[in-house]
C-alpha cells in the first residue's frame, strides 16, 4: 500500500516540477495579456505573434549580430517593445473607446500579418537556437528526477519577472497613476499626467513581456512562426480563469494550470490540452469573474 503510494509519488513529483516550468510560460504570457487588458481594455490577440517575434529576434541577434542569449534577453524585449509603441500609436490607440471585439479583430489581423511575414522570410519548420553555455550541460539531479538547468532558470526568471511587474503596478507611483487612469483617464490627465503616453508605454511593456517569454522559450521550443498561435488560446483561458486583468490572478493561475496540465499528461495525456477548457467552463460557472477577478 505504502509502496504503491511512494511509486505514484515518484511518478507524479517530476511531473509536478515539469508542470511548473510550463506554468512559468503561461504565467509570463498571461501576465502581459492581463496588463494590457487591465490597463488598456484591449484583448491583445497578437500576443502569441509577439511572443514568436521575441524568439526570432533572439535568433537574428545571434546569427546576424553575434549577440548571445543574455544580452538578447534584454535587447529582444526592447526591440519588440519599440515595435509595440508603433502599433499602439498608429492603430491600437484608436480603439480604446470601442467594444472589445474591435481590439480583438485588429490584433488578430496583426497576428496574421506578422506570422505570414515571418513565414515568408524564414519558412515554417523552425530554426535552431542553443541554450547559453552557462545553462547547457548535463541535467541537474534533484534526487527524484534529472532536470535541465535551463528549465530551472525558466522558473526563476518567470517568478522574478512576475514579481517585478506586480510591484511596479501595485506599489509604485507610476502604477498608481496607471490604475487611476484606467478608472478615470480624464481626471488623471487633468492632474498633468500624460495619459496617452502612459497607455503607449503600458502596451509596449505588455508586448515586451511576451517577447521576454519568447526569448526564454527559444532554446527549448521550436522557433517557428506558428509557435505563438498554438499557445495563445490556452493563455487566453488562463487569463479568463485568473480573472481578466488581475495581475496576481494570471500569474498564480498560470502556474496552477501548468501543474494541472502536467498531471493530466500522466493520467489522461490525450486530454491534456482540453483540460484547461474544462476548468475554464467550471470556474466561470462557479465564479463569473474568474478566480481572482473583481466582479
Amino acid at each position, binding site marked *: 500500500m505504502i509502496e504503491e503510494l511512494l511509486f505514484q509519488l515518484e511518478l507524479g513529483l517530476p511531473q509536478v516540477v515539469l508542470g511548473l516550468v510550463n506554468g512559468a510560460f503561461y504565467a509570463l504570457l498571461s501576465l502581459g495579456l492581463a496588463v494590457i487588458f487591465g490597463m488598456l481594455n484591449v484583448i491583445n490577440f497578437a500576443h502569441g505573434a509577439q511572443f514568436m517575434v521575441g524568439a526570432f529576434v533572439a535568433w537574428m541577434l545571434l546569427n546576424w549580430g553575434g549577440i548571445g542569449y543574455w544580452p538578447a534577453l534584454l535587447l529582444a524585449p526592447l526591440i519588440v517593445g519599440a515595435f509595440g509603441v508603433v502599433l499602439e500609436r498608429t492603430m491600437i490607440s484608436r480603439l480604446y473607446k470601442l467594444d472589445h471585439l474591435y481590439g480583438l479583430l485588429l490584433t488578430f*489581423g496583426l497576428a496574421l500579418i506578422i506570422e505570414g511575414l515571418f513565414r515568408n522570410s524564414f519558412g515554417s519548420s523552425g530554426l535552431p537556437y542553443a541554450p547559453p553555455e552557462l545553462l547547457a550541460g548535463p541535467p541537474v539531479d534533484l534526487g527524484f528526477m534529472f532536470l535541465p538547468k535551463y528549465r530551472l532558470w525558466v522558473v526563476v526568471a518567470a517568478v522574478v519577472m512576475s514579481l517585478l511587474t506586480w510591484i511596479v503596478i501595485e506599489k509604485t507611483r507610476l502604477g498608481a497613476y496607471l490604475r487611476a487612469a484606467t478608472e478615470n483617464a480624464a481626471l488623471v490627465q487633468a492632474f498633468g499626467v500624460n495619459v496617452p503616453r502612459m497607455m503607449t508605454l503600458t502596451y509596449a511593456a505588455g508586448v515586451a513581456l511576451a517577447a521576454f517569454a519568447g526569448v526564454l522559450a527559444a532554446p527549448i521550443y521550436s522557433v517557428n512562426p506558428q509557435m505563438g498561435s498554438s499557445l495563445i*488560446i490556452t493563455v487566453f483561458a488562463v487569463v479568463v480563469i485568473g480573472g481578466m486583468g488581475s495581475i496576481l490572478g494570471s500569474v498564480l493561475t498560470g502556474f496552477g494550470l501548468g501543474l494541472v496540465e502536467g498531471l493530466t499528461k500522466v493520467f489522461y495525456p490525450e486530454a491534456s490540452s482540453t483540460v484547461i477548457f474544462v476548468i475554464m*467552463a467550471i470556474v466561470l*460557472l462557479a465564479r463569473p469573474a474568474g478566480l481572482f477577478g473583481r466582479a
Partner: protein
Amino acid sequence: MAGQATAFTATAQQSPGLPGLAALGFNRAQSIAFLLLLGLLLVGPFVLYPVFLMKLLCFALFACAFNLLIGYVGLLSFGHAMFFGMGGYVTAHAAKVWGLTPELAILAGGAVGAVLGVVAGWIAIRRQGIYFAMITLALAQMIFFVCLQAPFTGGEDGIQSVPRGALLGVFSLAQDMSLYWVVAAVFLAGFLLINRIIHSPFGQVLTAIRENEPRAISLGYRVDDYKLMAFTLSATLAGIAGGTKALVFGIATLTDVYWAMSGEVVLMTLVGGLGTVFGPVLGAAVIVSMQNYLAEFGAWVTVIQGCIFVACVLAFRAGIAGQLGRWLRVRL
C-alpha cells in the same frame, strides 16, 4: 459596438417596403437588395463556378445564423464551430452510413445543432460579454476533443466520399448544377427564416434585450428563455449550414470544428456588418473568395487577410453593409 451600430440605424428613415416583400419585414432598400440577391442567386452559377458558390452560400448561412445571436441579441459566441462542424459530421454520417436522403441528412445535421445548442446555450447564457464568449469557446474545445476521439468521425482523415444522393430519393444531385439549386433553396429558406424571426415580436424582444437587458427584465420578459431560444435557433441553422457543406464537398473534417472556424465566422460577420440583414452574406462572400482566389499567392494569403481585417477595423467599422448603408442613407 452595438450602441454604435444602432445609432445610425435609428436615424435612417424607415421607408415602406416594396409591396409583397414588406410582408417579409423588408424596408424599401432591403427589398431592392433582396431582389438583387435573388437575381445573383439565379445568374450566379452560369457565371461563377457552382461549387465555389455553394461553399459561399453555406458559409453565408452560417454567418447569418451567427449574426442572429451577435447582431440581434448582442451575444458573442466564440464556439459556433461546434454546431457547424458537428452538423457536418452527422449529415455526412447519416448520408454515408445510414444511407439517408440528402434532405433528411441535412435535417439530421440541424437536429444535432439544435440539441447541442440547447445544452451549450443553457450553460452559457448564465454569463455575459467576454465570459459568455469564453464559455462557448470552452464547450467548443470539448466538442473538438470528442470529434478527435470518437471513432465515427475518422480522426484527421475525416469522413470521406460522402454520397450526394438523390433528393427525396428521386432527383439525383450528382451534377453540380442540380445540387446548387438545393443549396440555394436551403440558404434562402434559412435567410428568410432569420429575417422573419428578427422582425417578429419575438425578435423585437431580442433587440430590446440587446439594448437594455435590465429594462427588458423589469418589463416582465423572461430574458433567459429568449436568449436560449435565440441561441438554439442560431445553433440549429449553423448545423444545417455545416451539414449542407458536408454534402457539397462529400467530406466532413476536423477543420470545421476547430476554434479557428469559430473565429472565421466572427470575421465574416464583422467584415460584412454586424446586425445588418445582408452584411453576413457579403462578409462570407469576401472571406471565402479570399481563401479561394488568393490560394495561388501561397504564404501571402494570411498577410493579405490580416491587412484586410486591420483595414476593416480602422476604416470600415460598420462592415461592408453598414458602410454602404451609411453612404446610401438606408438600412441594409
